[in-house]
């Protein structure tokens, strides 16, 4: 195989491994609520099994060695030889983390804490040795245990829908026959009469006798693909026959355990494994979501690793193909018109161009959809986080997740992870009270944490909401006064007060007890979200709860733009940041110290930004003063940008100046307009921050005047 192909296969392996790790983690969380569900155990086992197998074939021996211990433990659990206990789930979760670290290191280079790996391996081994079955009978070393076995008796009872999963006993038995002398005994007693037969369901059962030296593992391997679609029992040939015809054992049971204690069998399972077959989630679900295979992505790669890839649902690619097909038709139509053009065909030409516009827009939308991933990827980590925090803080929390199918841009999704983790931790740590505290406050002991996502207009809104103690505006205000952020007599609105907790270093002090720590890092959260072009808002009622509401643009690469003219040049102001536009009335302009201008807009002073001067656009003597004020809002403040004229509104594709040229203050990017000219996008947040200092204190004065 060429190196290229191997590299590709490795990429696929890593993707699948990360996906498998996600499945394992989510399913392990599910075990907390349904410890006896064999489907869950099976899906975890299968994920571990394929990671182990893949790692083995690509030579990552450390991974496959490490996974082996987990696999063995899982195998014992799913076979009912070991009960599912929280302690075991814990160690499996920790092992999953370690495994993820190992896989990450293998895919991107880097070091893994070998000590931690060794410690976990030892811990797993200790557990396995402690209560497990004697190793001579364990499935991990079956070849050593039964080398001289004279054969196997297999009772094979397919579920009715076995055939529908693409399996065929004919092929299975043929494969089995290659392991030794096979004799097949058919039991057709359950077969209904032809009249009432559903021919697509399988009513036949078999007892198979395999004579020869084949070990149990290789016999079981033959049934690997069908083990969740049938009931299987294994026994050594010559030993006691498997008990009962209606076998309920889900997974291949070890010989010794089966014979010694036929005991209570695990409940019969649903026909298909829940986690693996999970379709894209319905918008509402309380359970942790398994990654949706069709659109799964791997976690953000660190610099230096292979470029991050994205797995895209085939339907999205098909839609793209359709549109490209139409585009080609339109193109050939236009070519035809061009070849034999005369004025009579002008109308056709304009039709064709209209078609082209439509195709292009659709193409753009489809391509953008390729980058969209459901927020369930973002959310999927939280059940785990909540579980961990819950046990370490002793708080009872119910996590509710809504709108997991809502799609966001992949980049947005990746960069949103840290802020969201922070907000969730904050809510668990400081928002929600202890069970005692909640009881005293007359609330349900179990706190509620709700993550929800939805589309609203051109934005995605993600809420992190708790029903905890809420923010105390008085305490925050006191703190803000102390820090000189607010005047002594000033009483801003609650919303503005809450915004203070986003200030760097705010409320780290011990005296804000009910909030202690709440401000730490929130400034980082806020900064991250703003760097994504988003905003964050707080709603809170003391004693009732807090809701952090994040609003993000759907995509980072396309912008709804307002084109404006400064002298002779066209600039772009992001439409989202524009509040309103007003004609300047000269009597409302005043000049404050330092020659800076402010504008009185109703009951507020806003700083005036002479954009042309700030951006170095020369204004010839002859040209008139700009008379149009575009009021923009960003970075928590407002400003008025003076422009000469408002032009079109349109969508533009953002080109980074930083990566193509160099960062330019006051400019956040550039785009190419329809006529081929380059237009710069104004960095509204930068403008506003710059201007904000100019009006500090003035608005309070105005307010007083208004009250007088």
């Amino acid at each position: 195989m060429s190196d290229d192909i191997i590299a590709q296969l490795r990429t696929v392996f890593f993707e699948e491994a990360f996906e498998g790790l996600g499945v394992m983690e989510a399913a392990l969380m599910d075990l907390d609520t349904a410890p006896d569900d064999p489907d869950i155990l099976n899906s975890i086992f299968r994920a571990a099994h394929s990671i182990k197998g893949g790692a083995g074939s690509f030579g990552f021996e450390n991974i496959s060695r490490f996974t082996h211990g987990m696999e063995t433990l899982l195998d014992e659990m799913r076979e009912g030889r070991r009960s599912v206990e929280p302690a075991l789930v814990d160690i499996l979760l920790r092992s999953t983390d370690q495994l993820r670290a190992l896989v990450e290191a293998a895919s991107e280079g880097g070091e893994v804490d070998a000590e931690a790996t060794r410690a976990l391996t030892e811990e797993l081994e200790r557990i396995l040795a402690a209560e497990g079955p004697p190793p001579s009978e364990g499935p991990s070393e079956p070849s050593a245990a039964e080398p001289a076995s004279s054969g196997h008796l297999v009772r094979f009872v397919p579920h009715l829908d076995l055939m529908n999963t693409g399996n065929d006993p004919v092929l299975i038995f043929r494969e089995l026959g290659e392991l030794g002398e096979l004799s097949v005994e058919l039991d057709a007693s359950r077969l209904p009469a032809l009249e009432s037969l559903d021919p697509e369901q399988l009513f036949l059962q078999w007892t198979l006798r395999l004579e020869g030296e084949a070990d149990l593992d290789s016999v079981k391997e033959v049934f690997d693909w069908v083990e969740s679609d049938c009931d299987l029992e294994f026994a050594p040939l010559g030993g006691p026959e498997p008990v009962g015809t209606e076998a309920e054992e889900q997974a291949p049971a070890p010989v010794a355990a089966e014979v010694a204690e036929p005991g209570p069998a695990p409940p019969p399972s649903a026909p298909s494994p829940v986690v693996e077959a999970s379709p894209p989630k319905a918008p509402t679900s309380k359970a942790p979501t398994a990654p949706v295979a069709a659109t799964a992505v791997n976690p953000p790669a660190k610099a230096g690793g292979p470029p991050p890839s994205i797995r895209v649902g085939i339907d999205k690619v098909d839609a793209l193909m359709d549109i490209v097909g139409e585009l080609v038709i339109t193109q050939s139509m236009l070519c035809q018109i061009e070849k034999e053009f005369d004025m009579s065909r002008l109308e056709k030409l304009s039709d064709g161009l209209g078609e082209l516009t439509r195709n292009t827009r659709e193409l753009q939308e489809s391509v953008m959809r390729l980058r969209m991933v459901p927020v369930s990827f973002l959310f999927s980590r939280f059940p785990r986080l909540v579980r961990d925090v819950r046990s370490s803080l002793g708080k009872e929390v119910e996590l509710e997740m809504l709108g997991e199918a809502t799609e966001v841009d992949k980049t947005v999704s990746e960069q949103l992870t840290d802020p969201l983790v922070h907000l969730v931790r904050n809510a668990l740590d400081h928002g929600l009270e202890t069970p005692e505290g909640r009881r005293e406050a007359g609330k349900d002991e179990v706190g509620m944490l709700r993550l929800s996502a939805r589309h609203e207009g051109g934005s995605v809104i993600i809420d992190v909401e708790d029903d905890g103690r809420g923010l105390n505006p008085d305490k925050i205000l006191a703190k803000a006064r102390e820090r000189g952020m607010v005047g002594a007599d000033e009483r801003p609105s609650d919303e503005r007060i809450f915004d203070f907790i986003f200030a760097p270093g705010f409320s780290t002090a011990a005296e804000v007890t009910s909030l202690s720590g709440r401000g730490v890092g929130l400034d980082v959260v806020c900064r991250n979200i703003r760097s994504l072009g988003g905003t964050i808002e707080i709603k809170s009622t003391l004693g009732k709860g807090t809701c952090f509401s994040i609003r993000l643009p759907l995509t980072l690469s396309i912008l709804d733009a307002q084109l404006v003219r400064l002298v002779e040049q066209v600039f772009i102001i992001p439409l989202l940041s524009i509040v309103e536009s007003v004609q300047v009335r000269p009597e409302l302009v005043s000049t404050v110290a330092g020659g800076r201008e402010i504008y009185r807009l109703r009951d507020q002073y806003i700083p005036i930004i002479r954009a042309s001067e700030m951006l170095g656009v020369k204004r010839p003597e002859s040209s008139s003063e700009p008379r149009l004020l575009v009021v923009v809002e960003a970075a928590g403040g407002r400003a008025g940008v003076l422009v000469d004229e408002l032009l079109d509104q349109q969508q533009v594709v953002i080109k980074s100046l930083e990566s193509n040229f160099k960062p330019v203050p006051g400019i956040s990017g550039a785009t190419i307009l329809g006529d081929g000219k380059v237009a710069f996008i104004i960095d509204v947040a930068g403008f506003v921050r710059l201007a904000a200092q100019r009006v500090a204190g003035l608005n309070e004065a105005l307010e007083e005047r208004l009250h007088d």
Partner: protein
Amino acid sequence: MAATIIEGPAEITIAGVADLHAQLREAIAEGERCTLDLGAVRRLDASGVQLLLAAARCRVALYRPSEAVRASLEQLGALAQLEPAFEEEAA
């Protein structure tokens, strides 16, 4: 006695087994003696084997089963049960 001969398709598998089942049911419902020609069958999976078993119980004759048919029946341990229903000559 009127007889219906049903041509067995090249593949009697889960994908097409429902069609053949419908044909057989119809023929039997009409109370005629029915023969299923298995001479052209190249593939028979477990659902096909099952259908033949059910058909044989309704006295459907299985005409000149091909090698592939015999192999699948043998593999699933159904050959012995069905051999009485085999017919080498057309009815």
